[in-house]
């Protein structure tokens, strides 16, 4: 009886230790240590990144990696309040590019989930054999640092003093900004109808803008209403033009007799700062071989832009807007540092694309 109790306690202790080891990631550690091929090494690294266990991911890297822990974390998890800092690695698809006896090249397609949708990142990683295991050689990240300086920012800012609610009927007030839809185009896409075009703030004050579309039947009755959601620049400065796109999933274009458009603008406080330049825009091929509009964003302000969204309007040879696409940039825009972007061009649009225009939506944590 006494020996049975001792045996039971010993077995229970062993089980508990095993559970603790598993929970602390011991299995992954073992996988990593015993990564018998390059894909497993990359997969184990991605597992650690997915678990936000950056220290262990860093330890697993090949010693020849020219990166320190802080830079590695910044490269992987983002910094400066960029969209990547609010994202989690959802999936990582690993595929070998080529393999030798001691070195290999592996492509990893990372899909990050964020509140603003999925973000995709493709990296080609070098993997090196270290004794009996394979380890990832993390490339040295290049962070452009701006030299210390004072950046004078003296762009205009608009504030609004509205009417006092206690004032009499008919008391003076300020009107909402005047905006105008300058173009509208209804197109049929697989499984949906899309309304797109451009809208201009014609006023001399900033506008917070929403564009809504109502699809009408032949008898004039409405059967669907949608807004442009985030496919528009909601804050438009005076004389600024924004593309918009409104999707109606599950609707066929032949069921639509007409479309009623409604642009609603509110007078809001706004700042003309930051100014973001969009440079070196070219149409080319993206990481997956698809047509993309590529370029760089340069924040010309003095403070970082945490989240930037690129909105691209594509035109045909008659100047008509034929598609509006967007892309969220997962890095923060540090002043004067170019940040690349790539916006998809659908295959059928690419053939008709003659011109394009890019504008940038931005969100800064410090701005009000």
């Amino acid at each position, binding site marked *: 009886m006494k020996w049975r109790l001792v045996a039971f306690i010993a077995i229970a202790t062993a089980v508990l230790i095993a559970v603790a080891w598993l929970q602390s990631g011991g299995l992954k550690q073992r996988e990593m240590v015993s990564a018998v091929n390059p894909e497993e090494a990359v997969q184990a690294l991605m597992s650690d990144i997915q678990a936000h266990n950056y220290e262990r991911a860093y330890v697993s890297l090949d010693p020849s990696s020219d990166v320190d822990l802080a830079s590695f974390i910044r490269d992987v998890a983002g910094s400066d309040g960029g969209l990547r800092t609010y994202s989690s690695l959802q999936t990582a698809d690993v595929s070998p590019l080529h393999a030798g006896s001691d070195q290999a090249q592996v492509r990893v397609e990372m899909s990050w989930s964020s509140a603003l949708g999925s973000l995709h990142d493709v990296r080609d990683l070098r993997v090196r054999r270290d004794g009996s295991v394979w380890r990832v050689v993390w490339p040295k990240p290049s962070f452009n640092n701006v030299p210390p300086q004072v950046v004078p920012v003296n762009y*205009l800012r608009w504030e609004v003093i509205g009417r006092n609610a206690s004032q009499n009927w*008919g008391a*003076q007030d300020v*009107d909402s900004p005047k905006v105008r839809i300058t173009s509208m185009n209804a197109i049929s896409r697989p499984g949906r109808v899309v309304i797109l075009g451009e809208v201009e703030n014609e*006023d001399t004050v900033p506008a917070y803008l929403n564009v809504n579309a109502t699809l009408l039947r032949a008898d004039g009755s409405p059967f669907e209403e949608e807004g442009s959601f985030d496919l528009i620049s909601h804050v438009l400065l005076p004389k600024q033009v924004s593309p918009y796109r409104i999707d109606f999933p599950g609707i066929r274009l032949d069921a639509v007799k007409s479309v009623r458009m409604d642009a609603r603008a509110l007078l809001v406080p706004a700042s003309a700062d930051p*100014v973001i330049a*969009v*440079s*070196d825009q070219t149409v080319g091929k993206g990481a997956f071989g698809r047509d993309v509009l590529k370029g760089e964003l340069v924040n010309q302000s003095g403070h970082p832009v945490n989240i930037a969204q690129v909105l691209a309007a594509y035109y045909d040879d008659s100047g008509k807007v034929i598609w509006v696409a967007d892309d969220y940039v997962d890095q923060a825009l540090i002043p004067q540092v170019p940040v690349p972007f790539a916006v998809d061009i659908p295959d059928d649009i690419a053939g008709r694309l003659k011109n394009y225009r890019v504008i940038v939506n931005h969100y800064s944590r410090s701005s009000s």
Partner: protein
Amino acid sequence: MKTTTRCDFAWCKRVIGLVLFCMLPASVCAAAELHVPAIVEAGQSFAISASGSGQATFYLVGPDVVVKRNVNLGSDLRIQSSDVRIAGPHRVILCESSSCESTTFEVKAAQPAHLSFFLHPSRVPVSFPDSIEGTAFVFDQYFNLVLTPAVVDFRITPASGAGFSRQVPTRNGVAWMRVGSTPREGKVQVTAVLGNVEEARVIQQVAAEACELRMKAVTSGKMVTLETDPVRDCSGNALPDGTVVSFTKIDKAGKSTIDIPIKKDVARAQFSIDGPARISVACGVISGNEVALNGKL
């Protein structure tokens, strides 16, 4: 002894008044005789003579008031000015022990004392025909709409240039006018005047669309600095600071764009250039000139 029943809300009082007014038709009553003026000015006290003798109960029912008091017949019944402030039909009822006498009178608005003045829009581009609308509602001191025709004088005073005015007669208590904006930007004061009553509003005349937008380019090595001429509309008014001007450069590296707000009448931008380049400028839907650098692209 006067008993006045009052509601907390003006609308409530009006509804109760109207209900009582309708529930007590004159035909049910026939005893003491009432002599009431047909029309009374709002806020003016007056007297009602009631023939007969003895005690009676007096009721006054109006859109905003219900009054009940015990009175002695044969003497004048004084109606306080505070009981007839709201314009509209009023009914007086006099009840003796067994019968009631009833009649109606109308309270008309008093002399104009307030103007509710709506002026739209609060900002208007210069030289825009029929773009300024003014509507004045004429009220007396108790905020009854004054239906008696009167002439409202709309005085328009631009920041520069001569002022002018429009005399508009009221119809059903409302005077309405529409004028175009003048060619110079700045504040425009519009005052609605009726007798001694004045109500002023200010609107802002702002520059219209950019006109003859032009820029010049100065190259320095691989950089080009672009600066527009002062951005003005076709009347010569400067577009306000903060208005966005878009510069677009096309060169070997691709297309680069930047939206720059106007600062002190001009917009400035800088691009790096790689070989021949073509640069254009636009403000809203208005295009400006185009500059070719280092030969044609």
